[in-house]
């Protein structure tokens, strides 16, 4: 079955630095990957989707890369701020149709220290 791993359960960085989160997947080749943010007690919020034919995608201070050879996606937050503190979830599509459920990885809890 498809497996999703994120690099660590928790990541602490200093304000102003770049945070880099890793998502590795095994047992299949997704056509795209999604990244979501979840704050405590709240629902996941969609951030970015990157397709297999896109090497990189940006949105304001966020950047996502997708390496289909390494089966890995990297999620970067540049000039990090305490407000970026949250859990970030990697989500490849399920094995079936693209309009199906989202399968979340375990998430990485990011803490940006002032």
């Amino acid at each position, binding site marked *: 079955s498809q497996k999703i791993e994120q690099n660590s359960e928790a990541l602490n960085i200093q304000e102003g630095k770049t945070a880099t989160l890793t998502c590795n997947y095994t047992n299949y080749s997704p056509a795209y990957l999604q990244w979501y943010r979840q704050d405590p007690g709240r629902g996941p919020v969609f951030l970015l989707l990157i397709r297999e034919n896109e090497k990189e995608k940006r949105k304001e201070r966020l950047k996502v890369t997708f390496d289909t050879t390494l089966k890995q996606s990297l999620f970067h937050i540049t000039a990090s701020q305490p407000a970026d503190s949250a859990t970030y979830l990697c989500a490849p599509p399920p094995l079936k149709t693209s309009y*199906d459920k989202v399968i*979340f990885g375990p998430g990485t809890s990011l803490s940006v220290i002032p």
Partner: protein
Amino acid sequence: EPEVTQTPSHQVTQMGQEVILRCVPISNHLYFYWYRQILGQKVEFLVSFYNNEISEKSEIFDDQFSVERPDGSNFTLKIRSTKLEDSAMYFCASSEGSTNHFGPGTRLTVT
């Protein structure tokens, strides 16, 4: 920007009681979902709904659970005979394609 809404925000019920969690998906979306998140654990898929029927359900979604779209706007999750282990955040989501848009969740507490 349109949002998914959920009511109530918090529901407390006694073990064995039935609860109905309500959701209003984004109006032009065609695919609807329920997810669950037990405290400290990851968000888990429960069920997807399309064209007025269940398109997929997880092994968590047993006979205790049912979903319904009673009218053109609401999407409900019914849990019959609740158990202590049903205590969790329940998120509704809707989609017009690949991206799921999540609601704020209902915190269900079974005592």
